[in-house]
């Protein structure tokens, strides 16, 4: 019974994770009990075997591959934004005339309301749309950094 309880603590004992009281308890038991001592020895050997496994090195292209993934991710997000703006633009083609028609019907067509609608349609959306397609936002990487080098490479290949 006592051995069973001690054995559950052996891994933590070997990993140095027991408090002082428990540590002393396990240690005292191990000095008296050959079977548990053998078990502790086996557990220690497992850690030793596992620790001995070969480690690998990341390939030389690790960072370049990462930046390539980041670049395509950013591009994907830009495309999403672009699509949303497209939808918005088309929505205004439908909604605006409808609003104008509604205004006409209700008869609140004031003198400068028509001008306001026209200018809104032609300027603001167009500008926002154009700036969202560009890759300007990626250019602010610090000079000399890997990311900056990577983006300038991509720009050149375009």
């Amino acid at each position, binding site marked *: 019974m006592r051995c069973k309880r001690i054995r559950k603590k052996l891994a*933590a004992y070997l990993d140095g994770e027991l408090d002082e009281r428990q540590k002393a308890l396990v240690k005292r038991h191990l000095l008296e009990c050959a079977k548990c001592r053998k078990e502790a*020895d086996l557990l220690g050997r*497992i850690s030793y075997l*596992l620790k001995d496994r070969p480690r690998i090195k*990341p390939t030389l292209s690790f960072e370049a591959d990462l930046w390539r993934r980041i670049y395509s991710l950013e591009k994907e997000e830009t495309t999403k934004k672009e699509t949303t703006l497209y939808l918005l633009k088309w929505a205004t083609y439908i909604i605006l005339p409808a609003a104008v028609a509604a205004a006409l019907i209700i008869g609140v067509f004031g003198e400068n309301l028509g001008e306001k609608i026209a200018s809104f349609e032609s300027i603001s959306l167009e500008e926002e749309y154009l700036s969202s397609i560009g890759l300007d936002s990626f250019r602010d990487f610090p000079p000399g950094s890997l990311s900056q080098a990577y983006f300038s490479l991509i720009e050149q290949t375009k």
Partner: protein
Amino acid sequence: MLDPDSQLMLKFKSGDTISFEKLVKKYKEKIVNVIYQFIGDKEEAEDLAIEVFLRVYRARKRYKPRAKFTTWLYKIAANLCLNEIRKKARFQTVSLSESIPSEAEEKLMLIEKIANSSPSPQDILEEKERNTLIRKAIDSLPAKQRIAIILQIYEGLSYKEISKILNCSVKSVERRLYRARTNLKEKLAPYLKGEKYNGGF
């Protein structure tokens, strides 16, 4: 006081990409190796490690230094590893009908390989055989036991750190590591004798 890595992450959050590059440089090898020990395939390990840093990149704007940076980083890696295992398990149930070499067949293949490779020294083969067996033993562990023992043995993390990474109590980390060792003990029995090992206590 914030750890220096969290400070780098905060700098990255405010737009300094060089800080991100520093973090990648510092931790890529660790992360590749943790995943490699878990998955057992070099290429896959590197792909997943890239995915880990991609997630760090994407999370920069939401980043809040609640724990040590490495705890957060290992957590991302551990979650990816666990997801990967789940994906593979699903795939395996589908393709189970395909012929997978039985254990006996594999042993025979190994014996044949040893018999046919005359010039290479015996101990190199023994090491290969041993590595295969250890790999298999690690693979046979339930995913959470596996990740816990990898973090403990290869990264030297404390039970408390592992509990934060796996979102569980210290007690359950202790239980997992105890069970992992019990499972490994059976599978590695042939290699637990006669190793050059000088005791752990």
